[in-house]
């Protein structure tokens, strides 16, 4: 049980949202609602982007407009594309030091605990406030090593050659309707480049935040890990509560070169009115390892299936996906692994939790291409239901075009066990505390993979989700 002071501090949170505060809006520029080619031109002018990016955006908009809405998964029909701001720019210029940040934004960051996090051995902080990253710092030794960690707009400005080579190469605009939308209006996100053989041994972290009502956030992240290099990128998302629905549609592209290693960790905790429709995909070359750790607690709707395309021999892909759906939430999560070369291996572990009528699904694809001999894959999906009116579904898609492969698939659904509850309660734990402990144990395999401060945050988020869920 939480103590009295915790209860007071958290009063009113319950089914609402902990970070549901919002600051007065303070913008240098705000586009009009809705999207057409004129808005794109305006955006490109504001950002002073090269012609090829302008063309890319226009082409992407055409693709977006021509593609139908997906009819599978969650109901997206309530998204009103004409009622969204597609571009906001909160401050004039990019901040590198804390003193450059406007007080109102600083205050928001303070509440999210970013400076504190930085004190806690954070190496670099990239924080997205609205559409642009306004604060970015990176420890000096990495800059010396040639590691680049910028917001994506700066990445384009300062490193156009390499940017142009990889941008859109993993997820082309034609991939899906929301990837096309992001390609047309993207702003912010992170650009990470790790040179050959460099090991970034402290996680790179970015906080993202939406603040304006009805504003879509379309961040775009591009991570390039050169041969034999390694990096761990961590993203955590929070958003304040608003009366009308917000749209978040990000694209994350990752290239891991031969023998390289990349781990991308997400703790998604959007407020419960956000549509979170994200395309994440990595290409792993020979002997490379790509790991997605993807936890989804918030949002009204999430549709997100991080993918690893193993395109070189012995590449390895791993996806650890967690979805915790409460009242009025539909989280459709999972992962995709594509074996495109011999002796590649992959593992998907999915853990979904549903309560108070929430719905959490696993949707996954395992594909083994012709010629990917000796490939191995394991998929394990576990679902935990906290009550009788919540729902969990599993949609495993398997396409195997090669004989010589080993594939395993396991799925389980369980309810919070009355005997476990009684056992824990007989040792002095309150019912809610006991249930929380069982849920925390259920996702422990993932939490232990998180950096320490994120593990703590994750457990706190689980506790908040569990508040008031019993009785």
């Amino acid at each position, binding site marked *: *049980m*939480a*103590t*009295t*002071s*915790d209860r007071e501090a*958290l009063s009113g949170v319950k089914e609402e949202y902990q970070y549901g505060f919002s600051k007065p809006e303070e913008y240098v520029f705000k586009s009009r609602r809705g999207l057409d080619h004129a808005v794109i031109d305006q955006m490109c002018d504001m950002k002073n982007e090269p012609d090829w990016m302008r063309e890319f955006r226009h082409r992407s908009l055409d693709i977006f407009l021509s593609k139908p809405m997906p009819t599978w998964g969650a109901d997206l029909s309530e998204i009103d594309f004409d009622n969204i701001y597609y571009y906001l720019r909160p401050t004039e210029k990019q901040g590198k030091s804390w003193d450059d940040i406007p007080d109102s934004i600083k205050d928001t960051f303070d509440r999210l605990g970013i400076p504190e996090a930085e004190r806690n051995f954070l190496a670099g902080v990239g924080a997205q406030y609205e559409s642009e990253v306004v604060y970015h710092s990176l420890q000096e030794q990495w800059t010396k090593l040639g590691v680049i960690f910028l917001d994506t707009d700066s990445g384009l400005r300062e490193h156009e050659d390499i940017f142009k080579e990889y941008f859109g190469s993993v997820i082309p605009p034609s991939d899906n309707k929301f990837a096309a939308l992001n390609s047309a209006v993207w702003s912010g996100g992170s650009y990470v480049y790790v040179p050959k053989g460099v090991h970034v041994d402290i996680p790179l972290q970015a906080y993202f935040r939406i603040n304006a009502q009805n504003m879509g956030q379309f961040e775009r992240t591009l991570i390039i890990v050169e041969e034999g290099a390694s990096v761990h990128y961590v993203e955590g998302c929070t958003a304040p509560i608003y009366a009308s629905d917000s749209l978040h549609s990000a694209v994350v592209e990752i290239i891991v070169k031969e023998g390289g290693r990349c781990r991308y960790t997400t703790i998604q905790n959007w407020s419960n009115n956000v549509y979170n429709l994200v395309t994440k995909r990595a290409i792993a070359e020979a002997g490379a390892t790509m790991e997605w750790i993807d936890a989804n607690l918030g949002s009204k709707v999430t549709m997100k299936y991080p993918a690893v395309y193993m395109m070189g021999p012995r590449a390895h892909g791993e996806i650890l996906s967690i979805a915790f759906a409460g009242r009025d939430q539909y989280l459709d999560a999972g992962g995709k692994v594509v074996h495109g070369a011999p002796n590649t291996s992959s593992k998907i572990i999915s853990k979904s939790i549903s309560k108070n009528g929430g719905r959490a699904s696993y949707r996954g694809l395992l594909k083994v291409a012709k010629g990917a001999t000796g490939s191995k894959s394991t998929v394990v999906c576990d679902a935990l239901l906290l009550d009788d009116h919540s729902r969990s579904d599993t949609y495993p898609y398997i396409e195997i075009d090669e004989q010589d492969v080993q594939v395993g698939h396991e799925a389980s659904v369980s309810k919070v*066990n*009355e*005997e*476990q509850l*009684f*056992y*824990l*309660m*007989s*040792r*002095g*734990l*309150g*019912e*809610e*505390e*006991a249930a*929380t*402990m*069982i849920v*925390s*144990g*259920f*996702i*422990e*395999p993932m939490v232990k993979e998180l950096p320490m401060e994120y*593990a*703590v945050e994750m*457990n*706190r988020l689980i*506790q908040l989700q*569990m508040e008031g869920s019993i009785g």
Partner: protein
Amino acid sequence: MTSELVIQDLHVSVSDGEKEVLKGVNLTIRQGEVHALMGPNGSGKSTLSYAIMGHPHYTVTGGDILLDGESILELEPNERARRGLFLAFQYPVAVPGVSMANFLRTAVSNVRGYTDQPAPSNGGGKSGVVGSNLMPMRDFRKELLDKMDEFNVDRSFAKRYLNEGFSGGEKKRAEILQMAMLQPKIAIMDETDSGLDIDALRVVSDGVNKLAGPGLGILLITHYQRILNYVQPDYVHVFYNGRVVISGGAELAHQLESQGYQWVKDEFGEAELVAV
């Protein structure tokens, strides 16, 4: 004051049926006493232990359970634990992903009242379990390791998931360790399983002998007399057909060993006998 658990004319039914399992149990256990409750399989011994701890599947239809003069029937299991009751389970369930140390720290913090205190402002104690004030980690750790050594529990168990993959003997060891950490006034030990192996038997009896003392009352529920070769009870009760039919001293256990339960059945039996 010496604590006492008084069970008065207790009638209990299984929740999802009309069937009465306990039919007027009377029993008093005081701190410092060791009671053995013996009876044939199916006589309701485990039901008694669950009912005392407040398992939701069992409904008290008559009588009362009093701890230090107050009825505990309306209390949740965790509130009973906080008043000083403990149940050592016959089959402790596994809780995957929850380490023994994390679980025990939370349990001890609840039972000893740490969770009633506001968390310190420096954020100490928020270790990933429910946002509550916990026993200071250093104190807890020292006590846990000391108790582990004392009760022959390998220190590696602190990091193992609660009861997951434990052997029968390891589960018993873990239950005894929990009991030692939670320091109850009255412990009910459900050892009705006839399949208890010799290792588990020794663990339980060693634990009882170490823990028994003026501060602890024990109700040891067992089917076989065997465990009583290792534990000397002050009182022996014969349980049959949902109630205590005879009470006496240790000599009663020896009578049961030499003569079995048949004479009990002959004397107190009804038509619906359950085979031994």
